[in-house]
């Protein structure tokens, strides 16, 4: 398998705070990499550095072999990097269909040029994530779980090669999590590479080919899901060290 994304010694400082500290990893074409870590570990910052909403202090990001760390976000999305936002960012004044149509109109390679085609595409992706019946509703009228689905549909409509999913399952109940898990499986079967930030361990275990753990901005473990989750360092990071 080929490397689609290579993150090389990436560091991001916000003033005195080092949010991401010298992190390196690679993503292989078609795999799902789980990115986990306690709150504040720097997971979302990593996603933002890859998608381009912020630029790194030092370090490199290579997408399909080309350096992208200093490209503006829209260029990266046209290369094929799609993301969702943990704090969902639907376009509130647009209806659900048109929210997704924006992704189809822009996105990878510049997207569709005709609104009609984009809307047809959007309808397809809404059905894909199970939101087909909400097309005409305004995006700000959707409840939490449906907003998560909308985020996913918007990112998918961009037709990305690499999809960065930032906690798309947070706040969902068991049945809904299972649905999203199966949607992500379908996404992977289309050949899309996925970087999955998630706190829902059940989902991480069942979906991830590999798992990477961040703690205080540094990488503390990487490997097969079972091995990583049983790693004492990871257990410590999540539960703290036992004091006797």
């Amino acid at each position: 398998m080929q490397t689609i994304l290579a993150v090389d010694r990436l560091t991001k400082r916000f003033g005195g705070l080092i949010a991401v500290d010298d992190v390196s990893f690679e993503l292989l074409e078609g795999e799902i990499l789980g990115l986990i870590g306690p709150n504040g570990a720097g997971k979302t910052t990593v996603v933002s550095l890859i998608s381009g909403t912020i630029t790194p202090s030092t370090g490199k990001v290579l997408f399909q072999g080309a350096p992208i760390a200093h490209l503006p976000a829209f260029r990266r999305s046209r290369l094929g990097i799609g993301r969702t936002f943990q704090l969902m960012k639907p376009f509130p004044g647009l209806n659900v269909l048109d929210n997704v149509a924006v992704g189809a109109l822009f996105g990878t390679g510049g997207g569709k040029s005709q609104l009609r085609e984009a809307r047809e595409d959007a309808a397809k992706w809404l059905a894909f994530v199970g939101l087909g019946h909400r097309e005409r509703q305004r995006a700000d009228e959707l409840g939490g779980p449906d907003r998560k689905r909308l985020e996913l549909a918007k990112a998918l409509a961009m037709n990305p090669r690499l999809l960065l999913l930032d906690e798309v399952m947070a706040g969902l109940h068991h049945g809904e999590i299972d649905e999203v898990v199966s949607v992500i499986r379908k996404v992977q079967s289309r050949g899309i590479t996925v970087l999955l930030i998630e706190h829902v361990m059940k989902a991480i275990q069942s979906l991830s080919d590999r798992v990477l753990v961040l703690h205080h901005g540094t990488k503390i473990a990487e490997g097969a899901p079972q091995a990583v989750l049983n790693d004492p360092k990871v257990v410590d990071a999540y539960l703290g060290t036992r004091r006797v």
Partner: protein
Amino acid sequence: MMRPIGSIAFVAMLLALVLVPWLSPPALIQFGTTTLLLATLAQSWNIIGGYTGYASFGNSVFYGIGGYGTAIAMVQFGLPFGVGILVGAVLAVIFALLLGLPVLRLRGHYFAIATLALAEAMTGVVSNLDIAGRNIGLVLPLRKGDAFFYELSLGLLALATLTVFWISRSRFGFGLIAIREDEDAAGVMGVNTTLYKALAFLLAGFFSALAGGIHAYWITFIDPLSAFDITLNVMMIIMAIFGGAGTVFGPLVGAILLASISELLATEITGMASLFFGLVIVVAVVFMPRGLTDLTRRFPGLGWRYFRENLRLHRL
């Protein structure tokens, strides 16, 4: 969205408007011309303020530049009006690009304040330019016949409205709306936000400048204070929002209605006119913050509930 009935009504209205100069007294033609120019300004503001979400207080500057470009070309260089107005428009477009690239990096209130300062700055600059007649201004050659200016203004408004109609259903327009709704998300989804904002600003400047050129030639006089009058900018914003910012016909409806109300009040109760005009605007903004066109969108089933909901939204 344009349904068949909608387009028939639109064409009929346009036809009626075209015929106005042949059927009505001069006073109405003059009122019509002013209103059409105001509607054009409201429609131009709609592109940057309504669709892109950048509340520009600098659009009256484009209007002034358009007027001055026309005046300077005609008076100082003896060029015909057709060339003059193009000079004004080109100047405004260049100005929009030079200015837009830095200023459009500011968001929200900061953008509004930065553009607000422009009008003042331009008054100062133009008052000191010999070619622009310093603070005395310029007198343009006279052209008789209000009908000419009326039809010209109507043509310009139609052009601006067609442009906005195209925007409302194009990839470009969706990019603008995405920027308005959430600029970061728009960028991540592949919208070249810098370019799109600059283009929207430029389009707004282009149409405002053409309106300014027509106005200067019609009035045959231009001076710094009236050319860069900030109240004009306030007017276009109020008209666009009153009718419905970010819609195709909202700014038109808003401009025509408000201009008519203001004219009626001014003739009926001269002294208190501006007070009542202010009252109309306050009531409109409180009860229908999304403008008049939002009422028609919900027309079947529109009731008191709609207004009550808006009241609650304001926490009044």
